[in-house]
């Protein structure tokens, strides 16, 4: 429909732009994060209504059906997904967005001319396709549909080089001829490149790869905004591209990694060390009652929660155990590693749900100096974030990541189900150390037993 004059359309798009900026601002602070997200959604709604009111569109019914289909897929999935599976869902949504941007650019090519516009089209097609395919691979890795370890195809370097060269040649051809079929081939090359780019990324680094692909999709959307002459797409995409770049760096820094190292480290053959083989050296395992005695008579306990706490949904039991210990006079603090769990902030969210006071959660830098004065470090379903291999074995995939130094504590107690390693797939020497005690079993069950035993002390 053409109900809105051009100026009004522009103003409404500007309004949506401001909503997006305010959304990002809001999302940067815990207090305003949720409101920020809603402001962003409202801006998107206004923009979508505006486009229907202001543009002469055919096929409106089909379009609305397509929107309904998209929403009907996305909303229930988003509602039902488990906390732990959220990162792969974000990856999935990012990928489809990239795919959509690539398709839009492909179709716009026929009505584009001029160097700038053609360049933007080629860029969007390529980057959107990389993002689509790359996100697909990250999804498969996180969903454990494939190995989480770095995958190196034979001749991976040559394949990467070849697809890069092909992409450049095709992009140049698109610029020269403006042929849609060439852009379609470019899209396919982009898909291949996306897969090749993400395959060598080790499991623990996948979230960083997702964040990077997210930023790329933002830039692709910005470029398609340039092609369409649409300011909202331009600004929205650019905001995501710019903030996503910063965010990727911040996330990498929190894991002690560099972004280039993550993407190209495996190519250089650095991070393929480590082994999934479970050795059969002796370990010291004990009963819930023994652990209860250790904890009940400790002066200070540092709890290190990890992915297993989330899987077992043991946060409430953990909080109850902590408060029981505190009434007995034991000081309990939580040492939160920035990448414990499967997404940054995972532990904070989980423990907040169990009403653990914010002050009891301490970040890595705060808690590490206190480890020496802790009687017990209680590691609940965590593994990689306390693995000394990060400090001692240069070949290991987690080498260089800062860890929580639980081995500084007098005693270390691990609650886990088996001797299996964690996300990064490497063994933890700490499990075999004399000061370590293991309590095997699901975290929630183990904690329930320990809690009961502490109450009987």
């Amino acid at each position: 429909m053409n109900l809105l004059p051009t100026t009004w359309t522009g103003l409404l798009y500007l309004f949506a732009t401001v909503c997006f900026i305010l959304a990002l601002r809001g999302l940067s602070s815990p207090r305003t994060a949720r409101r920020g997200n809603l402001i962003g959604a409202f801006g998107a709604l206004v923009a979508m209504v505006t486009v229907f009111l202001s543009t002469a569109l055919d096929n409106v019914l089909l379009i609305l059906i397509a929107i309904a289909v998209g929403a009907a897929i996305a909303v229930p999935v988003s509602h039902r997904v488990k906390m732990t599976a959220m990162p792969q869902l974000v990856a999935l949504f990012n990928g489809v967005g990239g795919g959509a941007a690539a398709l839009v650019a492909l179709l716009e090519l026929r009505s584009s001319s001029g160097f700038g516009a053609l360049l933007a089209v080629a860029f969007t097609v390529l980057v959107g396709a990389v993002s689509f395919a790359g996100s697909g691979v990250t999804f498969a890795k996180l969903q454990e549909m494939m190995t989480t370890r770095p995958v190196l195809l034979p001749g991976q370097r040559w394949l990467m080089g070849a697809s890069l060269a092909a992409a450049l040649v095709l992009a140049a051809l698109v610029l020269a001829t403006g042929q849609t079929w060439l852009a379609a081939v470019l899209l396919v090359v982009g898909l291949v490149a996306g897969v090749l780019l993400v395959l060598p990324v080790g499991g623990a680094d996948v979230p960083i790869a997702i964040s990077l692909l997210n930023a790329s999709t933002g830039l692709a959307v910005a470029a398609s905004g340039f092609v369409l002459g649409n300011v909202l797409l331009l600004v929205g995409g650019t905001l995501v591209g710019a903030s996503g770049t910063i965010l990727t760096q911040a996330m990498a820094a929190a894991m002690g990694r560099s972004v280039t190292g993550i993407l190209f480290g495996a190519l250089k053959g650095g991070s393929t060390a480590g082994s999934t083989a479970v050795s059969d050296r002796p370990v010291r395992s004990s009963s819930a009652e023994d652990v209860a005695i250790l904890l009940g008579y400790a002066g200070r306990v540092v709890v290190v929660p990890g992915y297993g706490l989330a899987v077992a949904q043991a946060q409430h039991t953990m909080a109850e155990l902590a408060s029981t210990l505190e009434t007995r006079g034991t000081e309990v603090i939580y040492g939160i590693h920035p990448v414990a769990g499967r997404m940054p902030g995972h532990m904070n969210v989980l423990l907040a749900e169990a009403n653990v006071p914010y002050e009891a959660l301490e970040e890595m830098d705060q808690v590490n100096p206190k480890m020496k004065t802790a009687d017990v470090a209680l590691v609940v379903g965590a593994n990689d974030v306390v693995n000394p291999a990060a400090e001692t074995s240069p070949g290991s995939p987690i080498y260089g990541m800062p860890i929580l130094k639980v081995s500084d504590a007098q005693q270390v107690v691990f609650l886990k189900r088996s001797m299996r390693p964690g996300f990064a797939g490497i063994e933890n020497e700490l499990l075999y150390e004399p000061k370590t005690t293991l309590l095997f079993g699901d975290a929630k069950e183990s904690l329930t037993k320990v809690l009961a035993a502490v109450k009987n002390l």
Partner: protein
Amino acid sequence: MDGVALLTIFVLAVFVGFEVVSKVSSTLHTPLMSGANAIHGIILLGSVIVAGQADSTWVLVVALVAVVLATMNLVGGFVVTDRMLEMFKGRGGER
């Protein structure tokens, strides 16, 4: 709108994007990534325009695929971000 104006807008948006998130705490990395992810779902707007101006069947089909994908990005992105942030609510109320 001419190219230089669009470029100016682009450059300013880069600065806004950089500055706005430069002081975010690591706790919010995931929701922020997810929220930003939702924002680029606004490519839906572009998909709708292309679909609405399709001049042949194959263009329409491809564009409708783009609409479905972009809707998943936009709608799913905001919903999943909201679900993540719901978790923070309890704590906010307590304070």
